[in-house]
């Protein structure tokens, strides 16, 4: 039953990710991407990558805070899909928008810090995607986990990339800041609950609630008591 549900949920994620891409391609060819379709496509793929990265970061806390162990099984695929959309995002920008015109690109790169931050994020995601296989996990051993903690850095950088690409000042709360602020807050919270002290407080609180409301009492409910080691 457990594995059936896992397969089902994984299938849903696959379907969502590929239909997002299909929907974009459909809109592109049916002229439904505003009068400036390349910009719209760049922004949309970037947004998808951002959402998927945040979703990937949310898995571990879902287990820590709510005891949903299965969520850990989605981390890799969500991260890989984030990587896929980040690559498409970059290719649209460099290939379709700038037509690989390195002269134009170079002029712009020199003055645009948000592009450098985006590029750094993509490099991290590439590194993590390349080493996401079991083979690399075994080969790198303890270092694999160390390496993959870079996803925390990527989470922060991608929000910075997004905020700097918007018209506005997040710190002064002026301009187009609502979404960058919301994503920033989400990433901050998701990283915060990973700090051991915060995590312990959160799990203690969860145990307290479970006792008080007898959450795990009903048979057949989620296995809240199968506590696993938190990575």
């Amino acid at each position, binding site marked *: 039953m457990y594995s059936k549900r896992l397969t089902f949920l994984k299938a849903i994620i696959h379907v969502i990710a590929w239909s997002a891409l299909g929907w974009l391609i459909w809109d592109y060819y049916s*002229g439904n991407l505003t*009068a*400036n379709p390349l910009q719209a496509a760049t922004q949309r793929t970037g947004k998808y990558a951002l959402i998927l990265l945040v979703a990937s970061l949310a898995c571990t806390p879902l287990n820590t805070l709510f005891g949903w162990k299965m969520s850990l099984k989605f981390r890799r695929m969500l991260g890989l899909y984030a990587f896929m959309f980040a690559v498409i995002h970059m290719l649209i920008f460099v290939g379709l928008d700038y*037509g690989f015109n390195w002269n*134009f690109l170079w002029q*712009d790169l020199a003055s*645009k810090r948000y592009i450098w931050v985006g590029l750094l994020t993509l490099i991290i995601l590439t590194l993590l995607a390349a080493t996401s296989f079991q083979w690399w996990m075994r080969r790198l051993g303890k270092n694999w986990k160390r390496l993959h903690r870079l996803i925390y850095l990527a989470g922060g950088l991608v929000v910075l990339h997004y905020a*700097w690409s918007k018209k506005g*000042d997040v710190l002064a709360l002026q*301009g187009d800041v609502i979404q960058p602020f919301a994503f920033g807050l989400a990433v901050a919270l998701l990283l915060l609950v990973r700090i051991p002290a915060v995590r312990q407080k959160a799990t203690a609180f969860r145990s307290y609630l479970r006792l008080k409301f007898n959450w795990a009492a009903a048979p057949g409910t989620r296995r809240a008591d199968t506590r696993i080691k938190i990575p």
Partner: protein
Amino acid sequence: MDNYRSIRVDTAEITPEPVYINRRMFMKAVGVTSLAGLLAACGLQPGEEQPAEQPQNQTGPDKTGAAEEANTFEEITNFNNYYEFSTDKTEVAGLAKDFKTSPWNLFVSGLVENPATYTMEDLLKMFTVEERNYRLRCVEGWSMVIPWMGFSLAGLLDKVKPLPGAKFVRFLSTFDPEQMPGQKSRLYPWPYQEGLRLDEAMNQLTLLATGLYGRPMPNQNGAPIRLVVPWKYGFKSIKSIVKIELVDYQPETLWSSIAPNEYGFYSNVNPDVSHPRWSQASERRIGEAGRRPTLMFNGYGEEVAYLYEGMDLKENY
């Protein structure tokens, strides 16, 4: 690499094509055209079917990019930076659909001999509405060619007679959060305001636009009256103006009050002054797939470069 796919949005089904084809040919041929009192006389409502009118007479040489092919009506009216309605360019048209533009008063005041309040009817009676095919370069790195209808701001300023102390012109948009949902956001210091130096305002290119494509101004493009300063980034061209004030100080502008390091008072189109987000060296003409190099003063150097002689335009961006 020349591997662009054609991505031109096909608007043939939506736009009454003959009107625009006709208009395009006529604009190419004529450029600046006087269409005296056309708007007032026809009293057309936006969206109403309109026959392609013939040019009345030719008033001047082609100095305004008229030879360039204009963007379609569809493109111009569905890709709008108008934060008073929405930050989403494609949503502005829908949200502005019922915006009330009549009655409308434009108050011209400050350091002038004859301060006055004009209705739109007054203005359309007083001035000859011309068609001007201008390039519009947005600070976001895209551009369009728009066949505006309007009259030179200089004409209006001549009527009110600026006093010797007047050095700058300050413009104010309407503030009406009930009709403009974006103005409910406190993230922007509404109402929108902009400014020009008096000599910039007096330049013949500086237009008070009351329409486009031979129609009254669509609401999403800044109806009923807006500024068009084609050698400056688009945000200088303030929309839905209710007040024009002659002052002796450099006016505050909305974008430079939010991010003074990104949006200067002058904001002349300048490929040599970079922006932290968008390319100012190159741009995409809406409807084209590739990029084209951005021209100094958006290609209007011949008409306006004299205004900035001896100025460091990298300092005064």
